[in-house]
């Protein structure tokens, strides 16, 4: 872990130099900028008076943040959203009961000012603060009940695809499947206008974090009876730091500061302009040209082969952060020859992950030997720190022996040509080619790489119509469960055909337990089963997020999963 230490050091140096430079620069630049700022006087005043921020930092007159969203969010209805782009924008427009503090990784008060949790961890009572909607109406407990009912109601048109994110509530799933028809029996109740009582199905240690997720956002009462409310800026009444002020399909999005937001005093940006460019190369050029204040993940991307270059060219602006996602190759373990764990293991042991990362993926990713990435909370600190992912080692000689053993068990002399499928993407292609070549060299296996259109690929994978396929998994919430419960027998996202009753038992026990240490123990056992014993997938690397941030842009944060929070950003004079 020498690497991460030097990285930390570098970031520290960058920060120091950055602030010093900003401090020096601001004095000189002052005069010139003031003249230009006259037409934006209100923004300047606001910024100047409200914020006695860290000493010598001077805010820029124009607090418009320009950023690229590589894809247009398909919807701004929190009940319908499903993707990270929507998440980025919705986070600026809405606020849930809690807000994620990206630095600490803990949920902190949002619309809920404070809360009480029952001793059994099942009942949460939230006390709402005096917040208002962008039209001045107070945000009340009923707004949450309404929103959650919309999500859980199978008759909402169209039904919420993420309804299952609310299955944590008592009778949530039952209501969706119509086993319970009275919404009063579902575990959410407006005790009075400012008190919300939530009852869970089972103790859920990460529930407070979940509440900051968009599916849990409240909606204003005007959405009732207006199916198209989220398709126009004019009918969108929101309760967050910004409101939607411009939206041209495929072209541009703009949100403007919501002065009615309860914490408007700590919002310094006056506007956020989102461009919708789906090309990393263009985004990078725009950034270098000063048309964007931030480039790269998670909203856009830096083209892979330029990452090493820009990290050298712009060391003060380049930021790398580990995020809780894992890239892996999964096996169809229901068919020969990959029904044999030894053969699977041999393949896993002959991938040289560091070489792959240093020369192919180029993003400074971390080699993965387990399935739960760093950054995911454990019983006490990070799970990955407590439970090391030393489930196997890269060892070509041992792999050869294992392969030979496995082939013997299968009654084969030589592994027939293996197909490795990936979905259309330059990055996936390069990784597949590099790994196919590694297997060829180390084990003499012939690998055919097969590229498939995205939906074709997904269908094939979900129908177990493949041998080895690429996959990636991102955390839904900050708990190892989000990575481990998917591999239970018949699990919706278990595309390997893995069925292990012992594994299922461990996961079920962990789900019922509220003892953090015991859960961690169970997770560690389950993960060992998954990787060390059965090797149903080959972990390749844990993702990093690579981005470029102009030195004058501060306060933009990423959470553990790499979701970005722009609301507290601000621009220094430059």
């Amino acid at each position, binding site marked *: 872990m020498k690497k991460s230490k030097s990285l930390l050091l570098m970031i520290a140096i960058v920060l120091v130099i950055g602030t010093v430079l900003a401090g020096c620069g601001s004095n000189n630049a002052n005069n010139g900028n003031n003249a230009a700022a006259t037409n934006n006087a209100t923004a300047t005043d606001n910024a100047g008076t409200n914020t006695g921020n860290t000493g010598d930092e001077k805010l820029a007159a124009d607090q418009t943040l320009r950023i690229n969203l590589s894809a247009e969010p398909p919807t701004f209805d929190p009940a319908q959203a499903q993707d990270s782009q929507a998440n980025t924008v919705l986070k600026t427009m809405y606020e849930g009961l809690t807000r994620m503090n990206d630095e600490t990784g803990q949920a902190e008060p949002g619309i809920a000012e404070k809360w009480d949790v029952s001793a059994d961890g099942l009942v949460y009572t939230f006390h709402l603060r005096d917040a208002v909607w962008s039209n001045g109406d107070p945000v009340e407990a009923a707004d949450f009940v309404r929103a959650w009912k919309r999500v859980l109601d199978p008759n909402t048109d169209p039904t919420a695809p993420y309804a299952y994110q609310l299955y944590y509530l008592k009778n949530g799933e039952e209501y969706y499947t119509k086993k319970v028809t009275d919404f009063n029996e579902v575990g959410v109740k407006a005790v009075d206008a400012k008190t919300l009582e939530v009852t869970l199905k089972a103790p859920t240690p990460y529930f407070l974090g979940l509440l900051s997720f968009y599916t849990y956002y409240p909606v204003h009462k005007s959405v009732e009876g207006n199916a198209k409310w989220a398709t126009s800026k004019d009918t969108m009444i929101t309760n967050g730091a910004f409101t939607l002020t411009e939206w041209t399909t495929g072209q541009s999005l703009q949100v403007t500061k919501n002065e009615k937001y309860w914490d408007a005093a700590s919002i310094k940006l006056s506007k956020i302009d989102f461009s919708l460019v789906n090309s990393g*190369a263009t985004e990078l050029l725009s950034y270098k040209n000063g048309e964007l204040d931030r480039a790269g993940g998670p909203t856009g991307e830096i083209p892979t082969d330029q990452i090493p270059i820009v990290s050298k060219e712009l060391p003060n602006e380049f930021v790398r952060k580990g995020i809780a996602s894992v890239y892996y190759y999964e096996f169809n373990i229901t068919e020969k020859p990959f029904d044999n764990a030894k053969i699977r293991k041999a393949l896993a042991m002959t991938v040289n992950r560091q070489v792959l990362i240093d020369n192919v993926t180029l993003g400074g990713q971390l080699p993965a030997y387990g399935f739960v990435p760093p950054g995911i909370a454990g019983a006490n600190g990070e799970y990955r720190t407590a439970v090391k992912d030393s489930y196997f080692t890269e060892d070509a000689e041992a792999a050869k022996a294992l392969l030979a053993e496995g082939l013997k068990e299968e009654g084969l002399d030589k592994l027939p040509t293996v197909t490795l499928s990936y979905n259309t993407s330059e990055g996936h*292609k390069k990784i597949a080619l590099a790994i196919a*070549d590694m297997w060829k060299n180390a084990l003499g296996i012939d690998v055919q790489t097969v590229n498939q*259109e995205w939906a074709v690929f997904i269908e094939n994978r979900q129908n177990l119509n493949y041998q080895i396929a690429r996959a990636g998994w991102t955390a839904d919430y900050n708990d190892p469960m989000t990575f481990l419960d998917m591999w239970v027998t018949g699990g919706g996202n278990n595309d390997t055909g893995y069925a292990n009753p012992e594994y299922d038992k461990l996961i079920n026990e962990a789900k019922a337990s509220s003892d953090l240490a015991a859960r961690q123990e169970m997770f560690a056992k389950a993960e060992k089963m998954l990787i060390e014993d059965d090797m149903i997938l080959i972990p390749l690397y844990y993702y990093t997020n690579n981005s470029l941030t102009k030195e004058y842009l501060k306060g933009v944060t990423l959470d553990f999963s790499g979701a970005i929070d722009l609301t507290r950003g601000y621009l220094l004079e430059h």
Partner: protein
Amino acid sequence: MASDKNLVSLDANLKPEDFRKIGIDEKQAEVIQRESLSAWRDSWQRLRQNKMAMTALGILGLIVLAAIFAPYFSKFNYYSNDLLNTNKPPSGDHFFGTDDLGRDIFVRTWYGARISLIVGLAAAAIDLLIGVIYGGIMGYFGGRVDNIMNKFSEILYAIPYLLVVILLLVVMEPSLGTIILALTITGWINMSWIVRGEIMQLKNREFVLASRSMGAGSKRLLFRHLLPNAVGPIIVTITLSVPNAIFAEAFLSFLGLGVQAPVASLGSMINDSLTGWLYYPWRFLFPAILVSLIMLSFNIFGDGLRDALDPKLKK
């Protein structure tokens, strides 16, 4: 004409017995045309005199030879990675440098030229064949035949190509044949429209009327008179379909329809190298130069061919 006069001036002392009837097909006598064999020879003669065109043909020949043989003169192959030597500039070892997986660009370029030439030429030839016949029939017959055939081509043209490609992707194995099929499904349509337009214009010209009044049939009119006169736009169109096929191949292969990585083609090499063209220009330049060279030679040769074939340009 001179020899005719000689004939007339021969000794006139001939008896009727000296003459014997040789059969004459009266219809054939009415047909006015140059002898076809000599027409081809004629064109070839003129083509040979066109130095530019012959140079272009020579370059094309060299490229084809290099595409076939050059890969054998290198110690590298097109698929082996060398991850410790990625993105290296040209050197004595790697004449054209290496790519992002450390593969030798020299070998890949020539290997890619092989694929691209096959795909480009095959697609162009099929487009030419189908397009000319289809367009010729539409333009010549007009009326209902034209309406129906024209609409059919429009429908085919308007069906979302990407859907067709995805369907092919599902039902066919990725291969060269699949990609040529995918390219020609709609590739011929543009050609057919150009030919149709030309024929519609030509068919009312005086020479066509003349030929028709002398009893020439539809087939003869179309293939002997109309199409040869439309050769200019046909050749221009065909020169467009070659590069289009080369780059469409790259796109389709990227989607998984064509030759699968690590097999190289010029189009896909250019595609892959574009984002880093500033930093690793050799990865982009060599295949790009080769494509341009192929196209340039192709067009110059096409021009020469047109000059040689087009009956209107005969002096």
